[in-house]
């Protein structure tokens, strides 16, 4: 993948959040491994953005993580032309997908939750915020390490279908939610984290490139410190 570059990378999880290799910043107050959706709130959003948090606060945990990971990239998508946003792909890979939200919807069906019972909704949320028009892809993989979406992103970039691709790896499963239906842990690992990478070609960088894409997985794993279920 040496013809591609990572324009930006980000990670957030219980141990903190960051967007470079120098380390993670701690949350203002510790966030547990067993995170409920309401605990990642407007205060946390305000660490990354001064925009109105109302949309963020309507989301489920998976979307909040993806939304924050994209924001944490610190790429000014609004500065890109319409034509470039039209050629900015977005893809997500996950193992747990929307299962946490699925369980909560099955227990208490509410219209406001239903739209979040799809693992692809996070793509819609990010596309709406940054007016991105795709292409798009949403994968559920048992051995999630982000490799599938990264391969697809590379394909889009090399074929010219996209100029840049935002790749997301997200896992969100609350212990209490899973335990409420006695879901075995091997079916759905508990915990939460989100990671994002903006991939592109060197000539199209919206900012100074950070890493050579040949080290992509290594970089991401170092950044995530959670090799099994994050990008």
């Amino acid at each position: 993948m040496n013809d591609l570059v990572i324009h930006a990378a980000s990670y957030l999880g219980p141990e903190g959040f960051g967007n470079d290799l120098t380390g993670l910043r701690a949350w203002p107050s510790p966030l547990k491994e067993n995170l409920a959706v309401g605990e990642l709130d407007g205060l946390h959003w305000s660490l990354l953005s001064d925009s109105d948090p109302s949309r963020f606060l309507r989301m489920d945990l998976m979307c909040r993580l993806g939304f924050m990971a994209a924001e944490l990239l610190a790429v000014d998508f609004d500065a890109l032309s319409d034509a470039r946003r039209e050629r900015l792909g977005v893809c997500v890979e996950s193992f747990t997908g929307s299962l946490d939200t699925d369980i909560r919807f099955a227990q208490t069906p509410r219209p406001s939750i239903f739209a979040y019972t799809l693992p692809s909704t996070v793509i819609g949320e990010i596309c709406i915020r940054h007016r991105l028009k795709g292409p798009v892809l949403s994968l559920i993989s048992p051995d999630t390490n982000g490799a599938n979406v990264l391969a697809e992103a590379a394909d889009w970039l090399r074929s010219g279908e996209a100029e840049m691709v935002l790749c997301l790896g997200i896992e969100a499963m609350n212990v209490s939610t899973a335990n409420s239906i006695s879901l075995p842990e091997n079916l759905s690992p508990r915990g939460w984290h989100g990671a994002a990478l903006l991939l592109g070609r060197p000539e199209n960088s919206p900012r100074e490139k950070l890493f050579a894409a040949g080290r992509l997985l290594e970089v991401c794993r170092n950044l995530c410190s959670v090799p099994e279920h994050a990008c």
Partner: protein
Amino acid sequence: METAVNKIASAGCGAVTAAGLGMEALQRAVAANASALQRRELLIGKTSQPVVAGFVADEITSQLRAADAAHADSRAFLFAAAALKEAVKNAEKILDSVPAARRGFILSTTKANIEALDKLVRQQIVSAVAQRQIQPAFLAADLAETFDCRGTVQCVSAACISGLSALQQGAVIIRRGLADVVLVAGVDLISQFVLSGFNSLKSLDPEGCRPFDKARIGLSLGEGAAAVVLVKRELLSSPAILISGAGTSNDANHLTGPSRDGSGLALAIRRALAKAQIAPDKIGYVHAHGTGTPYNDAMESHALRTVFGDRVPPFSSSKGIFGHTLGAAGVLETALCVAALQNNFLLGTPRLRERDPVAPDSLLAEPRAALKLDFILKINCGFGGTNAALVLKRESP
């Protein structure tokens, strides 16, 4: 000049729908322009309500359960496996020549075996297998193992474009040289979960969907499965149906409603046409998403006009036959398009009474023979503002 994805052919299809078990039953319903939607009294939340939808007949489910007791309470597995069995049988000779390690598998679903989750929440007994297959990734892995696909296994879950996105992924896997054959299966069920969701959004037509009709007020859910066997073109000797181009896009507009102007879908269509390297006027027929919701069908109409101008090809929707099968829809409707190309046949729009003037007048109410049909455009759209388009091509003899 050939493009990157247009060397992938369809070698066999299978389906389990409200119209019956198998492609033949489905094609009979298509030829008769007959609806298989049925009214049942179902529990939605805590109240019992009449629901018109495309249910797979209980006799079919019983038959499949009797043949596979291990998956008796995973209808998602049973339906997908039945569709795959038919598709694989249709492509038997080719599959026999391809080692298992060169066979990939892609599942397309929105909610996998969601019935098991409904039961768990109500503290009902669920088998370990049914529970495992709540997870789309495990349903995909189990189906891949059953059909001896030991190459790349993926699951696409992207709302109602899952099927077309899965077919696109299948083509990509073959093109990258990761597999010679990819089985693509789509499946989804009518469940308490899904009914509650669509009912809460007031998206259901209590009398049954009427796509592109002036009086349409909503969709009808459907359930079932479909499968398409994709192969490297070189493995087929006779003229084949090819995946010629594919594209996706996002509206960047609204989570549960389409953009009003259809610009997002038009973008996906243009991407697919560009991949296929054909001009819009080469398309002989469009198989629309056509859910029957007021906004979707109007949006699709705008998108078709945007791309084709005042020469919109004949188009129709099949959801009046079997309902909206969600994650299965793209695979199921593509299987119908493959049959249409093989038989030079255009599908009708069952349950249409009066065309909405917003829809181009090339809307087909009834099925008919095609004079010349080389390219079909298949489109789907979904929650999250997603759009997908696939161009299928019939090779000349």
